[in-house]
């Protein structure tokens, strides 16, 4: 248990360090990290992502949009805020606030509205039925009045959350306008709760835990944790040149490819039998034929022979072609 706790703390430190770098709550624009940038990392699900991507491996069409598309509305003229879970630490919230709602608040508050700022109040509502006042704790995030969504760093895996969007007044009061649904973030490690009937010694569970993550039979849990953290949070050290996945991602430098092909074509009587290098060739209805060969370095002797339908006559022509690459 002691090892687990120690490593658990280490996890928190690393997670905290990682977040400090990213900033407390990143705006929508800043959150536009796509998977591409991170792709070199050995994170969970990276191979699955690459393989699934290969299913959609046809190149992109440059086709024009053939008919004008109406677009989706910017909003639905309602006051609403929705909260969803991204991972154990981060939530995503989007909202719509009508100007009517803001105007009504402005009228109601009169002078005290001046200098107020739009803010999200994030409530920890774990293990309670939230009534607006009984949250375990809360924190505020000031948001740009134009923003309609936000990624929220809760620093709290395994908790329940609810947010309100409203205005923080100059005197510090928070006036909520809309409240979200409640969501639960998953825990970021094994549960501390054990079932008496299904007890397991800590050291055995530690080994099973490491094995479950594919870290081998001998890995003690401390190491397993660290490996997992590395993979998830900041590892770029693991790489391999062997994979077709990686190959695809590498940028090609300046390059050139040259190949040669040889076209052999001609004509004879439409009902004649024709062979090229001894192999029969089907003639078109008008007696013409075209063959196309990849032409490697070296000398190619290409006997072309036609035999008339009644086998009484034959013609033979033998082009000789050689290719040399310097």
């Amino acid at each position: 248990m002691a090892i687990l706790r120690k490593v658990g703390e280490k996890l928190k430190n690393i997670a905290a360090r990682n977040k400090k770098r990213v900033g407390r709550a990143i705006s929508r624009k800043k959150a536009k990290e796509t998977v591409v940038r991170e792709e070199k990392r050995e994170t969970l699900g990276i191979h699955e992502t690459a393989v699934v991507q290969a299913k959609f491996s046809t190149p992109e069409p440059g086709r024009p949009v053939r008919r004008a598309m109406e677009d989706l509305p910017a909003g639905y003229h309602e006051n609403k805020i929705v909260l969803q879970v991204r991972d154990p630490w981060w939530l995503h919230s989007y909202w719509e606030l009508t100007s009517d709602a803001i105007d009504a608040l402005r009228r109601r508050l009169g002078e005290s509205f001046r200098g107020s700022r739009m803010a999200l109040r994030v409530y920890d509502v774990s293990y309670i039925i939230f009534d607006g006042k009984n949250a375990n704790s809360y924190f505020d995030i000031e948001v740009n009045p134009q923003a309609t969504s936000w990624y929220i760093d809760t620093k709290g895996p395994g908790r329940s959350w609810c947010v309100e969007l409203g205005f923080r007044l100059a005197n510090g009061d928070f006036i909520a306008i809309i409240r979200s649904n409640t969501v639960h973030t998953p825990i970021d490690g094994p549960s501390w709760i054990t079932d008496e009937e299904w007890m397991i010694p800590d050291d055995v569970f530690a080994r099973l835990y490491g094995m479950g993550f594919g870290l081998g039979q001998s890995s003690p849990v401390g190491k397993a944790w660290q490996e997992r953290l590395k993979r998830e949070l900041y590892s770029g050290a693991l790489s391999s040149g062997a994979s077709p996945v990686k190959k695809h991602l590498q940028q090609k430098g300046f390059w050139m490819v040259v190949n040669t092909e040889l076209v052999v074509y001609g004509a004879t009587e439409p009902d004649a039998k024709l062979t090229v290098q001894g192999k029969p060739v089907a003639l078109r209805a008008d007696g013409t034929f075209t063959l196309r060969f990849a032409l490697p370095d070296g000398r190619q002797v290409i006997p072309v022979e036609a035999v008339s339908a009644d086998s009484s006559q034959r013609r033979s022509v033998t082009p000789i072609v050689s290719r040399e690459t310097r």
Partner: protein
Amino acid sequence: MHKGYLSIVLHSHLPYVRHPDYEDFLEEDWLYEAITETYIPLIEVFQRLIDDKVDFRISLGLSPTLVSMFLDPLLEARYLKHINKLIELAHKEVERTRWQPEFQHLALMYLDNFYRARSIFERYNGNLSIPFKDLQDLGKVEIVTCGATHGYLPLMEAVRPSVRAQVKVAADHYQKVFGRRPGGIWLPECGYYPGYDEILKEAGIRYFFSDAHGVLHATPRPKYGVFAPIYCKSGVACFGRDLESAKQVWSSIEGYPGDYVYREFYRDIGFDLDHEYIKPYIHPDGIRVNTGIKYYRISGSENKQPYDPYLAREKAAVHAGNFMFNRERQIGHLYGLLGKKPLVVSPYDAELYGHWWYEGVIWLEMFLRKIHFDQKTIRLITPSEYLAENPRNQVATPSMSSWGWKGYSEMWLQGPNDWLYRHLHKASERMTELARGFPQSDGLLRRALNQALRELLLAQGSDWAFIMATGTHVPYATKRSKEHLLSFTRLYEDIKSNYIDEKWLADIEYRDNIFPDIDYRIHQ
């Protein structure tokens, strides 16, 4: 006496790509490539094993969108056209490579592959759900269902009626096609949020899969880690993925598919050959596409060596032996540690086999043969069989999780795709409103209501958000999301204003014809 169980799961899914308005639609190639390179080769493998009396068990996830495409006459006709063109091209290749023996035998190999694919496709009249159903009826393959359109469920938490619709439409479709209720479900992207097991139970589904941390981080702590299923409070079982066996196949580091003698996916004659020559076999607009004819091995450098199928086959046999050896060791070790027979669950994307990892299908066949003939430690089992033999399992609530990038929802919820959810959730709310507002309906109104649910489900497919995040085919994914949402909105408004444009309705019923027997009242 065996010491433990191994359950292999192949999950196959493609989004519904059917575009009757266009003669050639690039994205339909996703389906045609997967048919030729994965689904038909898998059917061949299973058939050969049965012919040779090799006993095996495997679970196969078939998403309802994929099964619906198997059943669609338009796509069937188009696949035949597609494979016929490939056969024509392969003939030309055999001729063109006459002076290049190192390539000509490969051209002949592809020609043979294409002919066999066509013959199997024709044997089932183009309906590939038939051979899979037969395999299930023989007791060798257990087919699990999926979300109706592979919607990523944890991001529907704010609109649970949509989770219910994804699950129930899938289960009902499964019953219609496979003649029984589905025992299990592959939750799209393994996306689980606590409580969804209740919805599975309502649909009569007895188990689902989660990634390793879904079970390892379950509450209370799972006694056997991922090496035994757990029961949710609802009684629905959750099977956790084993990452050790996963890495051997998936990983770019330890994984088999990156071996230098295996075929290189990215060197396709559709891109390599002279434009004039290849033009009839690529997109009519001149866009180069994969043909499936690939002549090189991975090689380990930019200077690619010609592919050698014999060498690759030998390597696949070595890798199959290695995989078996590792599983025997793993299971032997776990048997000692747990004091009971462990279960190792190894799920993969089916399209990994054959399409991405060309030799994967051979590897799988060799592995299944070796398991049957060469060892006594491991017993292959399906989740249903496991539960029947081991009905007593620990009760615990799995942790929210997915098997996607970083293990949670970030793949489908990030800068390039997070704008979607505002619209998807609104449409879900409106669908619930319609379902409750019209407990009875008939005629045109009923058609409009059912079509509204089809459009909503199609908009929810996780593929669109995935594609937006990975950055290729983004315009297509965006267009699909928006078009289905816009069609939904128009239907909603028409229904509310009691003015349904029958001509337009008939048009989108024809275009988006998935789930002909859908009942909109499921969305509640």
